[in-house]
């Protein structure tokens, strides 16, 4: 579903991403682990077409992102670290707007049930987003993804800054989505969360994808040791 082939991004002499090759199949949750500046976000931005690669390709559903930026986006849903919404509009209105941007048409009740499905409490649907907590905004982001019925979900540090309960709920949502056959690419530095909901884990360092392991094949403690080892070397 998602495929990176020798994906490279350079800014002058600085290498942000160095020949990364990876693929994420439907139903898979691929977690990118790494320190700040390791290239996780860059990878996601390249799949979104926000950046154009220096060399290599990013493919979505077999389509080349750089060549068909709009078509590939039809399959993608994106939840950034901080879901920024229009503060003067309500949760439902925000969802309605972004869903419309993707070309979808939804009735008010459909929108409402999407938001509830994403975990937003009923009574806050018609309140302005300016008063939402970070977790609530994150849920609107999830609802946007749900509304789009995307085949791929790109998550950039989705749980950072969330309280443990909200974070846990979020993991559950991701898992249920992947069970429905959605391919998920998630950048995070939360090893615990990655182990919780990922099916495969990739460790990145200085723009390189240094190793990939299956989540089921590794214990939590081993993952931490592995991660720190790679960070040190």
């Amino acid at each position: 579903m998602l495929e990176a082939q020798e994906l490279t991004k350079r800014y002058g002499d600085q290498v942000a991403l160095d020949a990364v090759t990876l693929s994420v199949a439907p139903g898979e949750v691929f977690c990118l682990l790494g320190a700040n500046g390791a290239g996780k976000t860059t990878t996601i931005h390249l799949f979104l077409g926000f950046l154009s690669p220096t060399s290599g390709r990013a493919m979505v559903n077999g389509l080349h992102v750089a060549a068909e930026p709009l078509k590939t986006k039809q399959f993608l849903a994106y939840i950034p670290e901080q879901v920024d919404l229009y503060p003067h509009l309500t949760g439902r209105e925000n969802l309605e707007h972004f869903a419309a941007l993707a070309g979808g048409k939804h009735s008010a009740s459909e929108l409402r049930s999407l938001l509830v499905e994403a975990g937003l409490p009923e009574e806050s649907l018609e309140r302005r987003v300016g008063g939402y907590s970070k977790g609530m905004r994150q849920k609107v982001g999830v609802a946007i993804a749900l509304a789009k019925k995307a085949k791929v979900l790109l998550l950039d540090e989705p749980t950072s800054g969330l309280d443990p309960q909200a974070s846990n709920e979020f993991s559950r949502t991701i898992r249920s989505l992947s069970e429905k056959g959605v391919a998920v690419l998630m950048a995070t530095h939360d090893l615990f969360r990655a182990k919780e909901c990922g099916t495969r884990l990739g460790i990145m360092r200085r723009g390189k994808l240094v190793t990939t392991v299956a989540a089921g094949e590794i214990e939590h403690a081993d993952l931490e040791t592995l991660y720190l080892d790679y960070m040190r070397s």
Partner: protein
Amino acid sequence: MLQAIAGKEFLQMARDGRFRVVTLLMLALLLLSLFAGARHHRSLRTERERAAQVQRDQWLTQGEKGPHAAAHFGVYAFKPSGSLALVDRGVNAYAGSMIWLEPHKQNSFRDAPAQDSTSLLRFGELTTAFVLQTALPLLIITLTFGAFAGERERGTLRLAAAQGVRMETLALGKALGIAGALGLLLVPAAICGAATLVLGGAVTRGSGSDLVPRTLLLALSYLLYFGITLFLSLAVSAWARTARLALLFLLGGWVAATLIAPRLVADAAKRLYPTPSSVAFAEKVKFELAGAGDAHNESDQRMERLKQETLKQYGVQDLKDLPVAFEGISLQAGEDWGYPVFDRNYNALDAQFSRQEAVCETAGYVLPFLSIRSLSAGLSGTDRRAHEHFARATEVYRRTLIRIINDDVKYHAKTGDTGYTNGRALYEKVPVFAYKPLTVSDLRDSFRMPLLALAAGFFTTAAVAVFSARKQRILP
């Protein structure tokens, strides 16, 4: 989709308290200026209509006297104030408001209201045109500067982009949404304006039969102008790294376009085509007139020749034997000799002014402010061209008036008889001065260039806005 984007943009603005305040203030300003304009216009109109009436009465009741003396009493002509002057006063404050029509010379307009005003006038008049041309672009800028730059900073732009929307679509949708918000301000203002026009008696009196096309063209011109401002702001918002930079850049552009450039262009135009000084102009006319012949000076050589020609024409030896009064002939000849001099000099002045204005109009292709200013005043009938047209009409009238008087002397008096007088019967032969202002179709040619400039600007800036939106960076 366009509708969804526009709707969200509109809703967002409608809910933002700051925008509400700014828009309400602007609406207040607009209505205030309309009200002031209507008051100003009404008082001018009644005063000038009354003055024209009094003027005519004075002319008719000046009593029995020598016709030439009656001509010297003269007539004053007052510039009428067109209905749309309540929107745009144009150069009215600076061009004279009346002219004295007397024999022997073409006078200049006098009593520009600017001379009878406080020194504050130079800060500009609070007219509807000022609000529309100068203040409203500021509102558009405040509504638009964050359209892309702000969303980029806030992070909503990447969310929107990830949804797979075309940036071109987003740009057009935003333009529509902002235009909708502006409509909320402009539509009531336009209704009030139209109401003022109707209630002010402008429509019913039928003086402006072309009021409707004029108003529509005026509205179109302003809409194009606002469109240009909107698209330019969108383009800058797409290019600028941050919303703050976009705002600074746009404000700088506003200052440059509305305050600095017009003055610099005016300076350049004056330098390229200098205006003669009043003293030099008067001197030149006086000098050329002296060469043309003096109707009151019997020893003038040209007068002598005229005398001989007249004698030959009527086949008599002495002026006393003429069947007509030679005074009438000589007075008219004096006028006729002067006409080419006045025509040459006033036409040259007009041509010079037109050349200066052509400089401004050419600059209008880059500076929409100059185009809209020229169009707005032109359509309101308050630009210099309208003034010039009126001036020419008064001169034609003056010549008619003087000819009627001189003919009376020629056919009714006796040569050498200074005691001939006439009265009301003669004065009534002089028609009432009825001025027919330029119509829209007369002005077609002079409007073409600025209107074309605005239309070209509209489509160019729209293209630039779409292009910039497409090329913009999504990430902050």
